[in-house]
């Protein structure tokens, strides 16, 4: 079993839809959870960051972490064509440069105008 699993998609939704992206993980030691967005032919950029369980909201984006189920989600409200990208979940055990961040394989999202 891979440490972090993510449905690769592709996921195609109409503009304005609510998008739900999910990851599951196996290592209960993970405490820091991130979502990165990667546009085609670009490097990933950090979108959301959460610590431990709970929700975090930033504009149209909401990140949820359920450590008991080892499950994290990213919700995008009122999706826009500019949200079309690959979304990578990522996680780490401790908040230090000495620990590696594990990335999921990414979900490809297309928002159709």
């Amino acid at each position, binding site marked *: 079993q891979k440490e972090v699993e993510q449905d*690769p998609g592709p996921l195609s939704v109409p503009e304005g839809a609510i998008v739900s992206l999910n990851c599951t993980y196996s290592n209960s030691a993970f405490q*820091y959870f*991130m979502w990165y967005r*990667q546009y085609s*032919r*670009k*490097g*990933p*950029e*950090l979108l959301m*960051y959460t610590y431990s369980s709970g929700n975090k909201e930033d504009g149209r984006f909401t990140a949820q972490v359920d450590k008991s189920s080892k499950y994290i989600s990213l919700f995008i409200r009122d999706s826009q064509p500019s949200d079309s990208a*690959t979304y*990578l979940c*990522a996680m*780490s055990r401790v*908040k*230090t*440069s*000495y*620990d*590696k*961040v594990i*990335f999921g*394989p*990414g979900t*490809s999202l297309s928002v159709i105008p």
Partner: protein
Amino acid sequence: DTAVSQTPKYLVTQMGNDKSIKCEQNLGHDTMYWYKQDSKKFLKIMFSYNNKELIINETVPNRFSPKSPDKAHLNLHINSLELGDSAVYFCASSPPGTSGGDQETQYFGPGTRLLVL
């Protein structure tokens, strides 16, 4: 103004050759990384350096050798290139994590697309 830059952006070469990829960051970060992203978009860490010291060395062939001449630069040298080395290589940097900074906020470069023929 580019925060993390990599050269070259594209690299096409023959099997068996030796090549280098350079990375520079102007963010004043202490930590730099090399990641490999394969054709399935899986982003996997290869190395990380903190203040020129090797911190993370994942299970990569010893044909790959990172070098950090100073904390703003991290280069990757690859010897005897193989077909399986074809991928996109990303450099990234992050601020000090042990000082309350956000280690999770890794800033990625644009990537170097390596194709080995």
